[in-house]
């Protein structure tokens, strides 16, 4: 029998593995709590207006609750007000909104996560040398926060580490490969590269292999089979993972609780972890990684 409670999740994307993992978490929770969820997001993380159309479409379906990973911290507010007025509880996930309307926000602290990557990377290169970043998106929240978190931490704590360039491959595996190769070519003394999401990180791994620069330290973000394999084989030193399945699960869970009238914490920190060869098989880590 069809569950009567319907909760649409409007995400920032749907094609990235990361979002697929969030989706699977949400679907898991939907099963556990016997609610119905849908999951959709725009083509690219730049399409703020398309996301708003999706949000409007979701509201038209008169859902019981709604969850949103906002592409822009302000642009969705008018529609969220509408939801609020219609007494539809709103949960934010992945990225928050500059508003009190969301009852809770289930997200990763991307700045802190990237700062952790910076610490690990600095340690791996002995606290000095040239590094570069292959970002996934110049203007999306996660893209900006990860680059800033990483660069600022290096600036603040490791004066001898110099970020020579930050370039973007759109999270596309192939483009990121080409970007990383050019960076390696242009910076012969480069000691390390950071890729800010799965596609970027894989691109960096490919580039280092194709350019035969195995001395370059690679640090990644997110997971996926290739990233896990790269870490296992040593091609990548380690990576930060969020808990995407957890984000999806906790988001739906929070919505269900809100519907039951339970109190919610404003921030649900879903956590992030450093993983490398040593703890790859640690059950706690393995649980948050996706293929």
């Amino acid at each position, binding site marked *: 029998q069809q569950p009567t409670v319907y909760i649409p999740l409007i995400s920032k994307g749907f094609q990235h593995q990361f979002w697929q993992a969030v989706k699977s978490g949400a679907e898991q929770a939907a099963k556990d709590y016997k609610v119905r969820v849908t999951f959709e997001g725009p083509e690219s993380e730049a399409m703020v*207006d398309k996301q708003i159309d999706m949000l*409007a*479409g979701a509201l038209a379906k008169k859902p019981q609750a709604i969850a949103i990973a906002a592409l822009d911290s302000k642009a969705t507010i008018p529609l969220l007000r509408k939801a609020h007025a219609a007494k539809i509880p709103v949960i934010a996930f992945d990225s928050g909104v500059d508003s009190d309307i969301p009852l809770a926000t289930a997200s990763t602290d991307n700045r802190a996560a990237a700062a952790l990557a910076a610490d690990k990377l600095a340690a791996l290169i002995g606290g000095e040398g040239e590094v570069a970043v292959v970002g996934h998106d*110049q*203007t999306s929240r996660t893209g900006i926060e990860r680059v800033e978190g990483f660069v600022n931490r290096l600036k603040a704590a490791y004066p001898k580490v110099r970020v020579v360039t930050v370039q973007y491959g759109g999270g596309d595996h192939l483009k990121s490969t080409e970007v990383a190769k050019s960076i390696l070519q242009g910076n012969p003394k480069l000691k390390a590269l950071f890729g800010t999401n799965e596609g970027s990180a894989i691109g960096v791994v490919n580039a280092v292999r194709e350019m035969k620069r195995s001395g370059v330290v690679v640090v990644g973000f997110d997971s996926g089979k290739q990233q896990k394999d790269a870490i296992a084989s040593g091609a990548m030193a380690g990576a930060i993972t969020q808990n995407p399945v957890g984000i999806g699960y906790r988001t739906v869970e929070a919505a269900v609780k809100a519907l039951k009238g339970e109190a919610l914490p404003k921030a649900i920190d879903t956590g992030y972890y450093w993983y490398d060869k040593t703890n790859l098989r640690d059950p706690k880590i393995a649980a948050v990684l996706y293929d």
Partner: protein
Amino acid sequence: MTRLPFSPAALQRLLAFAGLVVLMVVFSIASDNFLQTDNLVSILQATAVNGVLAIACTLVIVSGGIDLSVGCLMTFCAVVTGVVLTNWGMPLPLGILAAIACGAACGGLSGWLVAQLRVPPFIATLGMMMLLKGLALVISGSKPIYFLDTPGFEAIAQDSLLANVLPALPIPNSVLILFAVAIVASWLLSQTLFGRYAFALGSNEEAARLSGLQVKRWKVAVYAVGGAICGIAGLLIASRLNSAQPALGQGYELDAIAAVVIGGTSLVGGRGSVLGTLIGAFIMSVLANGLRILNVTQEWQTAVTGVIIVLAVYVDILRRGKD
């Protein structure tokens, strides 16, 4: 050739546009949530930006050109308005003027590249697209510019003048602006020298030249008017988001051109109408909205949209073939 949007002949064409009607009927039957004022307003609103961009493209395409820069130009104009209003604190009318003037200037520049330097339109406007995309990021510092200090900016697209008169029809201004742009563009195309020459250029540029038309000048004019319309789209989207989002824009050109072609305008030039474009843009929004309301998964949404767009155009071809 084009006709005034609401002449009887055009009305018949509107009614006859089987694709849109069939889609609406199917979705209405499939879901109760579809045919509701709120949702219809959402569809109208979702069409505003793409519709306006598609109208800009219609002018250029009718004249035998193409404009790939419309999406990025829209964004660039939005960012320029943001700089003028938020960073420089100028009054609202100046911001509006800036968007439109900047659109016209950039469009005119594309037109000049095409007309004077003979760069193919695809390349001229592709180059312009990339230039504007880069510049939008540069002048905004890659961050959105918010219009929090400009009261009334949000109202441009989001308020509803109509709701004051007809409370039952809370159609937001963005939609009224879309219709206004459509009417003006349609008038331009069918009733003025500008439109006549746009069609002439698209139909046979060499003949137009040999007939004594100042081909270069009119080409620049067509692209400039198209650009100005993109400036209006920039205002619409900025007002809708209450911010200028510098990264947005690429990819919008494909939607806009698709709306034009779905609407029966030929990419070869010389033939087309604003009304058709409007219908094309609505087909796209109705499809997106309807499939979402039916909870079709996103990958199937994409696949089905592809099939239906082809079908809608095919049905229209059959219909016109019968005429």
